[in-house]
């Protein structure tokens, strides 16, 4: 059909200018020196070499560590939640899933801000502890606070794909397992969990990449000194002004994340079917 | 027949590398019920889409009342289409679906109301105006689609396998209904189908197509009785197709015997193919026939038995109401008028 075919043309130009060109600029900046101007540029790989320096390497290690912690907590909290939700009637399930989704729509800044008033030294939790006769605990600006913020923000990204996988499982498979003599625990590990794996993989990768690239939560709950990859990038662009190094880190981050997403899509049978 | 209304002259169509129409020449007349018949991928739907204006021919001309229209967009053509899966607008009720074309043309509301109720009566859907089209049965949706096209009073109605989605019984009913509607509105219907029975029972003219080429144009009786080539014979009904040699006019040789026939105009000694319809062959005692063989299988088909007789050269398919035991030696008999001689196809 010849009609409507040309409707994509504006977006081809637009997406090239606004999506492709910025990426190319990041690549260009990452392999050059010469500051923020393009006048006297020189090609170099030093920007990538700099990443291996101990102070920066530490940031990467910490990001991966906090990413893994977030994933683990999200998984061990989220899987049971998804599993329990999936056992309700369809109507109740859709309401419960809506309840899980709503926080995703709420401004992340405002939600993180809310945690500050709970976790701060003279915040609500501490004053509650004091009123019970305990010593107050320092929570703000610790790994704990960052993890709480990340988990609270990204838990839905774990729960929803797992729930989707679980709710797709044919009930007769579970009955078949019981019929063949498997008890509840065996049935869960040998049948249900295996069938929910696509959702688990999806959730794990999503939460991991959201966690390692986040920079608001570590900054607000971890404090100015708390550096994850995102904060390092921000620093390079806003305070230090080394756009070349900042671009190199961004490029690396983008490549790692796009690779993980590619991996996830390959493993999810529903995704590969499409197109 | 009336005047020519649509003429296709040397129409070809390429989709990328693939040529789906390889030069179609076809005249379509006023008041005619014409069927484009062929297997899927033969180009029949493409031909229809070119007439409707959804596709442009790569080469060739489409004339409408003598005027070239191949570049004219569909919304400026005096033809309307009933689509394969009806393509009803699910967000509109029956009335608004039917009134769509008239509303686009900004026809006066009271005239629209009159026309819609008239056409709904024609297709037997009075009182369905406010119904949700998505809740109608297949047959009812079909009728809405026909009404939606007819209300615009097209000169030609195009129907793209409109009965394909219906079950066998409903299909039969709709075939009769469609024929009745065509008579009543008195316009040309161009009907696309892959079902030979449907084509034969409804049409004035059948156009058999295969691989982008018209194989034969003729009345249903012509097409069935005098297939021009092996493809047509094979596609229309069941048949025994036998390689033969035309010795001279009215004398053909196959299976080692010479047979009288009624066909003329072939070269002497020309290699041809002969069609014998299963119902035209009689089973007789072996001594009363040239070709003899043994009954290989017998299947009861309701009205008749389907019998396969194994002979020296080939298996013959025969339809008969009589019963013969498997293994019985029999002879095959047929008259000169039962032998249909065709040009041999190049493969």
């Amino acid at each position: 059909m010849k009609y409507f075919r040309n409707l994509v043309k504006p977006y081809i130009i637009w997406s090239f200018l606004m999506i492709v060109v910025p990426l190319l600029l990041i690549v260009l900046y990452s392999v050059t020196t010469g500051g923020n101007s393009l006048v006297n540029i020189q090609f170099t790989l030093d920007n990538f070499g700099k990443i291996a320096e101990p102070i920066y390497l530490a940031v990467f290690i910490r990001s991966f560590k906090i990413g893994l912690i977030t994933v683990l907590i999200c998984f061990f909290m989220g899987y049971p939640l998804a599993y329990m939700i999936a056992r309700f009637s369809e109507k109740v399930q859709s309401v419960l899933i809506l309840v899980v989704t709503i926080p995703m729509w709420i401004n992340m800044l405002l939600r993180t801000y809310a945690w500050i008033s709970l976790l701060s030294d003279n915040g609500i939790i501490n004053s509650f502890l004091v009123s019970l006769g305990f010593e107050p605990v320092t929570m703000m600006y610790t790994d704990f606070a960052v993890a709480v913020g990340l988990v609270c923000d990204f838990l839905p990204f774990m729960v929803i794909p797992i729930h989707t996988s679980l709710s797709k499982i044919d009930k007769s498979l579970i009955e078949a397992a019981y019929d063949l003599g498997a008890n509840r625990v065996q049935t869960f590990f040998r049948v249900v969990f295996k069938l929910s794996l696509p959702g688990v993989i999806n959730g794990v990768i999503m939460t991991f990449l959201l966690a390692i690239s986040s920079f608001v939560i570590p900054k607000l709950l971890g404090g100015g000194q708390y550096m994850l990859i995102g904060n390092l990038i921000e620093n390079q662009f806003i305070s230090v002004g080394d756009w070349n190094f900042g671009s190199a880190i961004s490029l690396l981050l983008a490549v790692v994340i796009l690779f993980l997403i590619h991996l996830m899509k390959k493993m999810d049978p529903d995704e590969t079917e499409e197109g | 027949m009336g005047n020519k209304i649509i003429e296709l002259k040397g129409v070809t169509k390429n989709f990328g590398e693939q040529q789906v129409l390889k030069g179609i020449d076809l005249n379509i007349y006023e008041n005619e019920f014409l069927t484009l018949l062929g297997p899927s991928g033969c180009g029949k739907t493409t031909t229809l889409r070119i007439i409707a204006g959804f596709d442009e021919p790569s080469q060739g001309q489409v004339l409408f009342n003598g005027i070239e229209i191949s570049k004219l967009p569909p919304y400026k053509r005096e033809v309307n289409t009933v689509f394969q899966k009806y393509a009803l607008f699910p967000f509109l009720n029956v009335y608004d679906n039917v009134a769509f074309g008239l509303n686009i043309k900004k026809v006066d509301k009271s005239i629209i109301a009159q026309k819609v109720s008239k056409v709904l009566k024609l297709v037997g859907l009075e009182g369905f105006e406010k119904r949700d089209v998505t809740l109608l049965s297949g047959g009812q949706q079909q009728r809405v689609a026909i009404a939606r096209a007819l209300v615009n009073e097209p000169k030609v109605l195009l129907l793209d396998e409109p009965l394909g989605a219906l079950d066998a019984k409903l299909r039969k009913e709709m075939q009769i209904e469609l024929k009745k509607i065509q008579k009543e509105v008195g316009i040309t219907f161009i009907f696309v189908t892959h079902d030979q029975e449907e084509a034969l029972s409804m049409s004035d003219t059948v156009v058999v197509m295969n691989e982008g080429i018209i194989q034969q144009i003729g009345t249903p009786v012509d097409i069935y009785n005098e297939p021009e080539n092996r493809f047509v014979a094979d596609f229309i009904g069941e048949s025994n197709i036998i390689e033969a040699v035309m010795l001279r006019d009215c004398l053909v040789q196959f299976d080692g015997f010479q047979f009288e026939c009624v066909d003329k105009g072939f070269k002497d000694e020309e290699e041809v193919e002969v069609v014998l319809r299963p119902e035209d062959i009689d089973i007789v005692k072996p001594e009363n026939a040239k070709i003899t063989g043994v009954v290989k299988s017998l299947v009861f088909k309701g009205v008749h038995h389907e019998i396969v007789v194994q002979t020296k050269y080939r298996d013959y398919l025969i339809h008969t109401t009589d019963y013969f035991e498997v293994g019985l030696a029999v002879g095959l008999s047929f008259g000169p008028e039962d032998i249909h001689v065709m040009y041999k196809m190049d493969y």
Partner: protein
Amino acid sequence: MKKSRIFSYIYIGICFAFFYLPILVTMVFSFNSSKSLTKFTGFSLKWYGELLADGEIMKAVYVSVSVAIIATIVSTILGTVTAIGLSKNRKVVKEWILNINNIPIMNPEIVTAIGLMILFSSLKITKGYVTMLLAHIIFCTPYVITSVYPKVRSLDPNLANAAMDLGATPFQALTKVIIPMIKEGIYAGVLLSFTMSFDDFVISYFVTGNGVQNISIIVYNMTKRINPTINALSTIVILVLVITILIVNLVPMMIKKTKEKQRNEKAC
């Protein structure tokens, strides 16, 4: 069986508390009469008054709302038109566009943000309201396309043909048939781009300048000095959002119900 159900209720309750408790605390303390964030000393609308009186915050609200509205309108039109065109294009073209379209969705926000920051500075565009708006259109459009395109793809390709066959011009076919048929996808796109734009912090933070701030940025800058007016702002923003989402989710459910009811009545 009963026992495990009770356990489920408790567990789900705890998880939901984890999601919603911080938000509830914010809301409750927005009505506090004192500045304390730990002791509720009495009900008052004082902070809402201060919120309205705070010119800087009100300006940020204006920026957030106006950017979200304009970005939503532009990206919905651009995205819908593109999605409709996509289905009519060859597979190669389609896949390329969809792949490029996916980049802003999959890329970490911060990478998209610095890419745009470099782009704007290379083009010597002064950072401010315009750059923020442009950036929002850029990251919202892909979401519109991904929510509209599946709807377009599931359409019977003959629907547009049917409309034109009945005399509609291509433009009429678009407005009278295709758009009504994909409107659910378009609504989803509108909702998604509005909330994405309204909630955005990372991208806005990097591409804005000259004192132009949206709500997220102003909250970010104010976290250092805890301020109950932010609680009041939060409460309003969250309530508006939650109500919108509830309506958006509940209305289709109710429509579906009445449709089913009609179907059942017909079946009887």
